Structures are given as C-alpha cells and as structure tokens.
C-alpha cells in the first residue's frame, strides 16, 4: 500500500515536471542595428547620422494567433500582452490557456488593440494603466512608447518620443473632430527557441526603414497623425525584420 502511494506521488511529480518543461510560451526580445539592444548607451546612429540611445520601450500586442503548417489557426484567448523592456517578467508570457508550438508556422498579432478593445479606464493598475492615452487625443491606451535621447547637430542632448495610439483629425480651430485607430496586424514566421516563440523588435528599424527619421523634426508625435502613420510603417518592419 505504502509503495503504491509513493509510486503514485513520484508519477505525479514526474508528470508535473514534464508538463512544466513542455509548456510553450512567447518571449520578447529587442535588437538594435542587428545586435542585442544595449539600453541607455549612446552608441547608435540613425540612418540620418544622428547619435542616439534607447532609454525605454513599452508596447501592447493583442489578438495573438498561432498559424500551423496545415493552415489551422489557434487564437489565444484574452490575449492582450504588455511588454516593458525594463520589466523582466513582461518579457516572457505564458498565455492563460496555453498553446502548442509543435508544427507552428507563423504568429499573427495586432500591434496595440483593435477599436473595440482600446477603451479608456480598462486597466486600473500599473504598469498597464501608465500607458493611458488622453481622452482629448482619442482615449484608450498608448500602443507603444519608445523613448530615446539623441544628440543634435550642436551636440546638445534632446528627447524624442515615439508614442503611438489613436490618431486625430483636426478642424481649422485645431480641435479634434475625428479619431483614427492606428492598430494593424503583423504576421511573422515562427522563430522558435526552446519552448518559446520569439517576437523580436528591432528598435533601429523604427527610426530608419522604410522611412528615415530626423529626430529633430519632432518632439512628441501624439497629436501628429501623419507622423504616427509613418512610424507605424516602420514599426511593422521592425517586428517583421
């Protein structure tokens, strides 16, 4: 009897260990100019030859789907994920109901949220609630905050914020009369490392491709739909790279 109980416990422990080992997840990584990103080091140059350092990067992804080789899709339920380069636990994500990476071919997700999900006041707690997007500018949340410091032509230090969220169309009195959702879908081939599908963001691409940015043309861009649209093109390329 005792032997049976011990056997059962050992069996359970082995099963638990195996299941813990095989749980699949998503890992978020960052590169800059094709190498692992080094935060807070003034070592990068934009294609417009401006020296910069990356200080912060935070973003939301949502509606994540795994596409398998047989074209079947697995939608990850309630999949809104917040990633903050400075919060290690946000860089690894095990979705609530799990998913299997075996025979997975690609990963598709929304950058930010779709219009129905992007509701003000849905996040009450930090760090997610710190991503709020002001109601006057359309409400909801920032899809992304990427903050850098760069040197201008006189070698002065300046700040540049690539903040993306809902855009605005203004009337002649400079009042917003219409809002535009800037979310978009991104599809990337599965890059698998151990039990993780890796989503990498190449920060330098945000500033270089396909649109080369001159930081000094901007300060913030939250009320500049044209700029946000342009950065969205670059962000898509930065995830797809």
């Amino acid at each position: 009897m005792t032997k049976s109980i011990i056997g059962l416990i050992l069996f359970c422990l082995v099963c638990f260990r195996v299941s813990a080992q095989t749980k699949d997840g998503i890992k978020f990584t960052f590169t800059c100019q094709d190498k692992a990103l080094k935060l807070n080091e003034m070592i990068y140059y934009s294609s417009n030859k401006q020296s910069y350092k990356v200080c912060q990067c935070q973003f939301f992804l949502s509606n994540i789907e795994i596409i398998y080789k047989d074209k079947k899709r697995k939608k990850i339920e309630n999949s809104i994920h917040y990633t903050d380069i400075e919060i290690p636990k946000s860089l690894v994500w095990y979705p609530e109901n799990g998913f299997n990476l075996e025979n997975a071919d690609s990963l598709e997700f929304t950058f930010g949220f779709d219009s129905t999900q992007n509701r003000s006041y849905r996040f009450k707690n930090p760090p997610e609630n710190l991503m709020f997007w002001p109601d006057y500018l359309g409400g909801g949340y920032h899809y992304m905050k990427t903050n850098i410091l760069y040197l201008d032509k006189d070698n002065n230090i300046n700040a540049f914020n690539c903040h993306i969220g809902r855009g605005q169309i203004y009337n002649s009195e400079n009042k917003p009369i219409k809002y535009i959702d800037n979310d978009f879908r991104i599809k990337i081939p599965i890059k698998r490392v151990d039990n993780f599908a890796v989503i990498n963001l190449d920060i330098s691409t945000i500033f270089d491709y396909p649109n080369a940015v001159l930081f000094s043309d901007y300060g913030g861009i939250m009320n500049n739909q044209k700029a946000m649209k342009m950065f969205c093109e670059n962000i898509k390329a930065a995830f797809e790279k």
Partner: protein
Amino acid sequence: MKTFFIFLLYSSCFLLSCATQPSKMSFKPIPYDIGVPFFPDSMNIPENNPMTVDGVRLGRYLFYDERLSGNPSKPMSCATCHKQEHSFECGMEVFSDGRPIGNSGKKTPNVMLPLINLVWNNSGYFWNGLINKDNPQLGSEKYGVKPDSVFNMTNIESTVWMAIRAPHEMDGDISQAVKMIKKDNFYRELFFKAFGTTEINIDLISKAIAQFIRSLVSFESQFDQFMAGKIQLTESQMRGLMLFTTEGADCFHCHGSPALPLWTTNMFMNNAKDVDFEGQNDRSVVTKNPMDKGKYRVPTLRNIEYTAPYMHDGRFKTLDEVLEFYNNGLKRSPYIDPLSINTNHGGMHLTDNDLKDLKAFLLTLSDTAFIHDKRYSNPW
C-alpha cells in the same frame, strides 16, 4: 472557609487576567475598507500589518501624540510637522522654506512630501525611494539603531522609528518613547483592540501609525466631482485639462490624467531643473546608478494648492513659479528624463492665458473635504 479561599483565588486570577488583557473576548479585528472604486487595486499593505478599524484608530492617536519623541522637554509628534491643512506637509507658515527644523536644530534635507494616497505607492517612499520593499538595510549606524528586523527600511512602518531617531526630526530615544506611551493606561485597550495584545512596543506603534497614514485618502477634489458628473468645470479649467493632457504642456506622462487619478505615476524622474547634481540626495544614491542623477519621485498634484513650496528642495514658493519654470526654465543635462520633450527647446512656451488655464485646472485637484475630514484630525 476553604470555599471562600478558592473563590478568592479564582476571583484574583480573573481580575489579574482582566488587567493584562482588558477585553480578551472582544478582540475581533474589523478590516478597514479604504474603498475608492476608481483607484488602483494594487495597494501597498504589508501582509503582517493588515489595516483594521481599531489599528487605524490607534494609529491616529499615536500620530498626534507628542510623547512619541520620548523626550518630555522636547515633545514632538508626527503631526507637529505633518499638518492636515497642508495635505500632511508642514506648509510655509512656520518654516518658510518648507524644510522643518528637528529637535536637534538640524533642518530636514528636503521639503516634505504630502502624506496622501500613499497606500497606492508601490515604488518606494521618500523623494529618492530609499524606503522600499527591496531595501535590505536593518538599523542605522548614523541614528545609533542596531540591526534588527523591526528596524527595517521597507515601508511606511519604517518611517516611524526613523522619525523618532532622526536628528532633523524628533531626535528622540525609541525606548523612552515606548516607555512614555506604555505609561498611559488609555493605550492598553486601544492596543488590545488593534493587535490583540496589551504589549506595547515600537513594532506595534509603527504598525498602527502606518495604518493611519495608509488611511489618509484623497478622492473628493473638484475634479473628482466633475468626473462623477456632479459638477461642471469652467471653460478655463477645461482648457487647462486639455493642455495638461496633450503634448502642449505634456504634464500627463509623469503626473497622470483622469485615467490615473492619483495624479502621479509614482515614478522617479529628472525633470530638467539642474545641470549640477553634486551632493544631491537623489535616486542615484539609492540605486547606485549614475544615470539616476537628479531623479526624484514625481509628487502627486492632488492638493498641490496646499503643499508649497515645490520641488524636492522647495526652490519654488508658488505655483506660478513652477509653471514659469516648466514654461521657460528647463535645462538640458545628460540625465534628463527621455519623456521631457519640452526640454529640447527650454520649456512649454505657452502663452500667459494658457498658463492661467493650466493653473485653473491644477486648482481643481484641491480636495477641501480631505483637509477638513474629521477622521484625520487630532483626536486628543
């Protein structure tokens, strides 16, 4: 006769037990409900000090008790400097630079931070976040306090023993303070109701005061009433809100918005007011990261009207001076926060009318109900 002696023995035992535990049967802690539905759920309440109605009540008495300094010739309580009418800062009436002078004659190194809504701060207390959950330090050589788990530096509880010992605060003696509180029989029942014991020590004194401080909640400002649909704001106040929450003034990234109703992110930031950081007691002192030079905790803008002077060193006496600094006085340094995009051109460069509107909005964050709330006033 024998029966009489047995009766006497039992009676004595009963009376003695009553003397040490005044109401043993009545220790039924009732959880204290902070209850602000639109504030975050993530509160900073240590597991070993849950808030109870009686814990907060005891803490209130202790907060206002001048015997806490442990020095009858120099009585001082928390409330000596933390004044309710100033959102539990000292104001400028007595100390014109906002930096109180302690019992030793030393000034506090920085101006005070308001004691409001601290229960929602999970990123560290004091201007530089010295008091935080990850601080392993026990005791203080500087204050002559031996390393002991009671004398930690992790939460609001820690600020009590520090305040008693700090030369720029009470400059007192912890054991004397405990003795003086113990002497007052009035406290025995309060301690029992709060903690289920009549034992009085610095650990429980700290816990009770911390509970009271966590209960200091401001959520009824004019702006809160506007958000609840109870009142309208003026056109000027609305314009100020618009400026505040756009990159025109760009206050919201650090100080919040209606979606972040604490009106602080509780983060540590360098807001471009200095270029020389030599000798500053800033965030880098805690993190040892040189990139954190000039960083200080972003203070709440709730009750900003009552909490002059402003900035960690109190350099600005009025809100107008603060606004003028953000409008034209931002200084570049390698340590500026990357969010401070207005530093690129020296400030916000708003018009006088814009500044008036911005100020009008800031004043809607004043919570008069809080500063007159009897639950927070002197109970003695």
